[in-house]
């Protein structure tokens, strides 16, 4: 089961890789719920930040990959830290900014160490109790899989549309790109819908 080449998953043999996906998601959930409490002590949050870096070590990587996960957020994090430092003191700045860092880094770690398909299977299993509320877990899985499949399909269409645009020396406006992309995607959806029916999804 390797959908990995599409996702952020990085293969490995570390203890974190070998943990069942359900357990990892549970730890993450507990961590998120506990953050309401841990946020009261800045030193505890600081310790958790250090622990999150160590968790990346344990998974076989270093502080660089840890930072890669946080880099897109650095401006917002800096802004939050500065505002808190000015309005409520540096302890609050450490606690609140640090909590975001811990949660984002740990959630990213789950993603990095768990293959996409394993997560889909876990979600389908977790959705089982929802059957009584009219949720069909198998349907959920089907949606996720068809969705995963459509990403490269539409990306391929986008590439073709872009090439056609260049070939015709059309303008590079967003609209001139997106209209044909959406129209071709809708046609592709018609064909895919027909294929789903032919292969037994007729409701």
């Amino acid at each position, binding site marked *: 089961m390797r959908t990995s080449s599409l996702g*952020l998953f990085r293969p490995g043999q570390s203890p974190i890789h070998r943990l069942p996906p359900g357990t990892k998601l549970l730890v993450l959930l507990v961590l998120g719920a506990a953050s309401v409490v841990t946020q009261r002590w800045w030193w505890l949050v600081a310790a958790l930040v250090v622990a999150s870096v160590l968790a990346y070590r344990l998974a076989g990587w270093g502080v660089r990959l840890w930072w890669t996960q946080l880099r897109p957020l650095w401006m917002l*994090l800096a802004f939050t830290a500065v505002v808190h430092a000015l309005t409520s003191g540096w302890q609050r700045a450490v606690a609140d900014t640090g909590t975001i860092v811990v949660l984002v880094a740990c959630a990213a770690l789950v993603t990095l160490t768990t293959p*996409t398909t394993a997560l889909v299977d876990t979600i389908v299993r977790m959705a089982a109790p929802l059957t009584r509320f009219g949720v069909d877990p198998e349907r959920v899985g089907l*949606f996720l899989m068809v*969705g995963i499949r459509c990403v490269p399909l*539409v990306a391929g269409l986008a590439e073709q549309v872009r090439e056609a645009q260049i070939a015709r020396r059309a303008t590079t406006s967003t609209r001139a790109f997106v*209209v044909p992309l959406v129209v071709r995607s*809708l046609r592709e959806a018609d064909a*895919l819908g*027909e294929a789903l029916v032919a292969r037994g999804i007729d409701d």
Partner: protein
Amino acid sequence: MFNMILRVTENPVRRTTARDIAIIAVFAAITAALGLLPAIYLPVSPVPITAQTFGVILAGAVVGGRRAGASQLLFLALVALGLPLLAGGRGGIGVFVSPTVGFLIAFPTVAGLIGWATERVGAPYRLLPGLVVNTAFGIGVMYLFGWVGMMATTHLAPWAAIVALAPFLIGDALKVVIATLTAKGVHASYPGLLRSRTARAVAGAA
């Protein structure tokens, strides 16, 4: 292929057909593909304009409320599963605890609301009502969610959260306009997605 289109227009019973599944999946992928477009930096703001929320508005304006909402929910699920589909190649559950989480949660809601309102207005798709609907939900509701999410994650004061979000507004205003024009173009080249006002009146009377 044509019979599928017919089945939808002839049979307005609300259930998810195989074609709906395909459209939902394809629109989730379109939102993803738009995130791959290079970000544009305007000199007045440090925040890049990405095309991602463009996909949210477009889904609503093109395929109707139920399918649009479902497509963006699926998009978020794929992001959560670890596909690097957010602008800048981000993904994974980490983004759901980051300060911009409010915007993400808004995706299905906004797409659903825009789709619902667009269906109410009916075919043919017109620019002015489209612009009003897309601005009201695509910016109004989107930022309401984004603002609350920002405060919840960063514990910033309401004014500080507004300051943090303001730079995004310039790009989003631009996106709403382009998305509306795009939706008009799509409806022109692929008719039949929206039921016309007259057809709806007839169906309602029957």
